């Protein structure tokens, strides 16, 4: 009985992992104008996404200068800020996205090499 259950749960767990590998990512990057920091951030996040989430991500770059109302709505204080809208939970990343490891961890992406 016990064995059966654990077997089942392992199976389910694997299923979830499989599902997460296929999950779609919705990311929003808020930048303040085209400063060097903004550019670095955009480049970095694009690189990460292309490398790890190819084909299953949506990245939107928003200039908060142009949309200040969004800054209020999304509780943006620092720039650049990356918000992971999906999958849940919501997460925020601030900075120029140079710390790839932290981003991957936060985005809940397992690096293929680990597998």
């Amino acid at each position: 009985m016990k064995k059966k259950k654990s077997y089942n749960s392992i199976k389910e767990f694997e299923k979830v992992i499989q599902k997460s590998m296929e999950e779609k990512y919705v990311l929003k990057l808020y930048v303040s104008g085209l400063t060097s920091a903004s550019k670095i951030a955009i480049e970095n996040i694009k690189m990460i996404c292309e490398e790890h989430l190819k084909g299953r991500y949506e990245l939107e770059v928003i200039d908060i200068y142009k949309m200040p109302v969004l800054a209020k709505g999304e509780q943006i204080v620092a720039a650049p800020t990356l918000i992971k809208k999906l999958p849940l939970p919501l997460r925020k990343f601030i900075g120029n996205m140079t710390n790839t490891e932290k981003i991957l961890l936060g985005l809940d992406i397992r690096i293929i090499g680990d597998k």
Partner: protein
Amino acid sequence: MRKKIKTKPQFKSKPKQKIKKVPDVSLLKVPTGINGFDEITIGGLPKGRPTLVCGSAGCGKTLLAMEFLVRGAIQFHEPGVFIAFEENAEELAQNVASLGFDLDDLARKKKIIVDYIFIERSEIEETGDYDLEGLFIRLKHAIKSIGAKRVVIDTIEVLFSGFSNPHILRAELRRLFRWLKEQGVTAIITGEKGGEGTLTRYGLEEYVADCVIVLDHRITDQISTRRLRIVKYRGSLHGTNEYPFLIKDSGFSILPITSVGLNHKATDERLSTGVPRLDVMLGGKGYYRGSSILVSGTAGTGKTILALHLVNDACRRGERCLYLASEESTAQIIRNAKSIGINLEPWIQKKLLYFNVSRPTYTGLEMQLVTLDSLLKKFRPSIVVIDPITGLTSIGSSEEVKSMLMRMIDILKSNYVTTLCTSLTHGGNNIEQTEVAVTSLIDTWILVREIEHNGERTRGLYVLKSRGMPHSNQIREFLITNKGIDLTDVYVGQGMVLTGAARKVQELKEKAAFRAGRDKMERIKRELERRRLLMEAKINEIHAEYESLEEEMHEKLKVHEAQEKALVLDKSVIAQMRKADHKIDQDQDQDQDQGQGQDKSNADKNSKIKASEVKK
């Protein structure tokens, strides 16, 4: 209100040149509208500059900042932005609603924007360099959207807990304050109190160095007092003291200790004390209007009653009176007043009399002052009774109480209010000295005391001082009757003053002596009368004796005359018979003489009778 001290016109014309020059250089200020704050900062906060307000939790930073915004929006038409890090708009609106500020309404009218910035550290990953441009943009957007002139950031230190890189934060904050100056907005930044030697936890004062205000909340003897101090105010004069302040139902209230000048108006108008004979003692007319009166005395000497007389009389004239009681409840005062024939109820119903009863220990000294101030503004009484002022000593050191009372009396005087304070002197103390040492502030000082003499206590009253009027120097005895205070007649006989039973005894004694004297006189008079009657009786007796004697004599005379006639007749008969004629003539002459003598004695008798009749 007459509180505002107008600058004298004659000073305006002379230093005109100076006044013209000054505004160009000097700091422009923005009035906050906060009660008392603009007085101690001489105009308000520095215009277009950030001000740091720091203090520990719960000392009123947020409220000060909020009131600055709200009053700016309402009174000075300067819209404001409130950047809140700690509370959201809803909470803030709720918090200040108790002070009568309708934040939602102001937000709807686009006068105030509350922007709640929420930073949850657990949600945020720091992945390299960043700046706080997001904050700047939000702030700018908010300022632009309503044309804000005032900005509040409360409490910026939350950022330090939200972001882990202090170097970036410090650089960004420096930029923020510079940026705020560039925007030309007058800003208040609040900060948490730091440890030893620093005003704020993260040394914010380094950035906002133009004006720093520290709020404090201290508890001494279980009574808390809030204090405000301007640590620094570049380019401006400012009060340097610690100013006690209060947060009450209408917001902040700061009471400058030293700002009140001694330039209250003086008037010749007089006010009855409510006791006619006391008026007489005070130059015949009573107190001066707008003066301060102290009634001091030991327990149970009738201080309150004297105050009630004044109140009753003023209410009868239709004047408003404010009674600040701290020892008796309203109902008790009313009841006790009835027992001396003073009915206060109609005055309360007519809203001429207002009782403010509170234990002094319930609030701090400052609260007392502020309560009085707000009551003065609301009720506008012409007479205020503080019964007693000595109750205040329980909530502060004598120095504090004195300074508070000084301000209190100053506030009252500048409002042209006649103030009567009662002061309880404890037995054994010098009665010509009050516990709270305010006598120098008092214009008229009436001392009521017990005179203990010969096994009884009587109440005595005298005017210790009364500025600007001739006043009686007598100690007058008074009685508390069911018609109120009755000053008794002064006993002036025998060159001494007697009171109470001794006076009564003396009076009775004199009465008795007087009566005895009168009786003696009566007795003498009666004796005289008796003597007179006795004498008269004797006279009558003698008279009657005489009369009977006279009658007898007359009878005898008649007999003799008849005998004589008979003799003459006999003689003539004999002469005829003997033919003799000459001798008869001689005898007739003798008869005539005798008749004259008899007439004379008759006349004498008549006059005597007449005299006795007159006497009767």
